[in-house]
């Protein structure tokens, strides 16, 4: 069944063609974000209120929101038991997931592991892992060891009462990928270069001795 955007009962949303533009996904309960597409017409499947595209692109925001709700519940319980409130945490997304969450225009395909650097306590980590698992993702146990350039900027993606979700900027993520696993990430780097990569990307490549010629 295909219905147009705006129909609350739509199972699919039609995203029209013509350059990069934004379309609001109807019925995506906890997802008020937008889908950015360019190129030809395409249909996005909604299954249980989640548009597939949004699901993959903004899933971490939804997880952070759920984690924040869990924190609030924990804080209420702690208050009732006269215990200290849980410590707020900051989760920094690395790797492809950071690109997906910041709405990168690159063609991304990623495996289900999520690389993060976070300062949460063990119980919060376990809850985060559980929430990711429900979305078909998994927390990479050594994800925090991923090398990132010192110049990495972290962009705010979600700010809750207890949870702050940040995503590493595109240039830093791609430099990290080009340095760490050039073969695996060659098509991605090529695509970014073809879009006219930023000066910062070239500067970082120079600084960290990443040979960009190997990608072309």
């Amino acid at each position, binding site marked *: 069944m295909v219905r147009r955007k705006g129909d609350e009962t739509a199972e699919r949303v039609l995203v029209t063609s013509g350059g990069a533009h934004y379309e609001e996904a109807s019925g995506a309960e906890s997802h008020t974000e937008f889908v950015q*597409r360019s190129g030809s017409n*395409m*249909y*996005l*499947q909604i299954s249980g209120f989640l548009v*597939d*595209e949004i699901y*993959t*692109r903004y899933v971490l925001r939804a997880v952070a929101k759920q984690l924040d709700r869990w924190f609030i519940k924990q804080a209420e319980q702690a208050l009732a038991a006269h215990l200290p409130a849980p410590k707020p945490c900051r989760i920094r997304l690395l790797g492809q997931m950071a690109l*997906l969450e910041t709405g*990168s225009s690159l*063609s*991304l*395909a*990623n*495996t*289900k592991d999520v690389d993060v650097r976070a300062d949460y306590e063990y119980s919060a980590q376990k809850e985060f892992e559980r929430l990711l698992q429900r979305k*078909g993702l*998994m927390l990479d146990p050594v994800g925090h060891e991923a090398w990132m350039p010192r110049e990495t900027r972290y962009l705010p993606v979600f700010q809750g009462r207890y949870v702050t979700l940040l995503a590493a900027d595109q240039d830093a993520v791609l430099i990290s990928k080009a340095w760490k*696993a050039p*073969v*695996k*990430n*060659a*098509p991605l780097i*090529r*695509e970014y*270069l*073809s879009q*006219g*990569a930023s000066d910062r990307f*070239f500067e970082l490549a120079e600084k960290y001795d990443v040979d*960009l*010629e190997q*990608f*072309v």
Partner: protein
Amino acid sequence: MNRKQIVLAARKAAARDARARRDARFSRAMGVFKRAGLLHDNTGIEPLRGPVALSDVLWAGRYEPRFFELLPAVLVKKPSLVHLDRAVPADLRRVLTALRKNEMPPDFRGVPGDDLLRWVPHVGHRNKTPTRSKTFRLRQQDLKLLEELAQKLDATETGVVRAGLRALHQDMK
């Protein structure tokens, strides 16, 4: 090459990659891997019910190396997802042999061995790694004891050996 030359050369190569991503072989491979929850993407390819031909996955891997990262684990743990329409290439066969023995496989088409190994517990039945057969020569009384224990514990003989090993290990702590 200066920056401009790199961008120009990348444009050509990226156009080739983009063409490949529109190819039916790529869509089939991505669709099946997506439906199986192994890959997520933002290219809007529809999830597809498997299986997908091995030749399609090997072809798609040239443009999305994550197929190469997952393919060996899929062939070991969820072989129903891939239809063997051609002989398994020798390099892939070497990787599969190592994975089945739970050993570190050699690199596969640019993907390091440890990246290949880490997917085995996460494909198909979660947290399970392939079992391996090992042959032992036992005396008649040992065999009898094994049968008796299996009957008493309502377990298989392998189950008895596993339980015995764990008990012995626990005892030694």
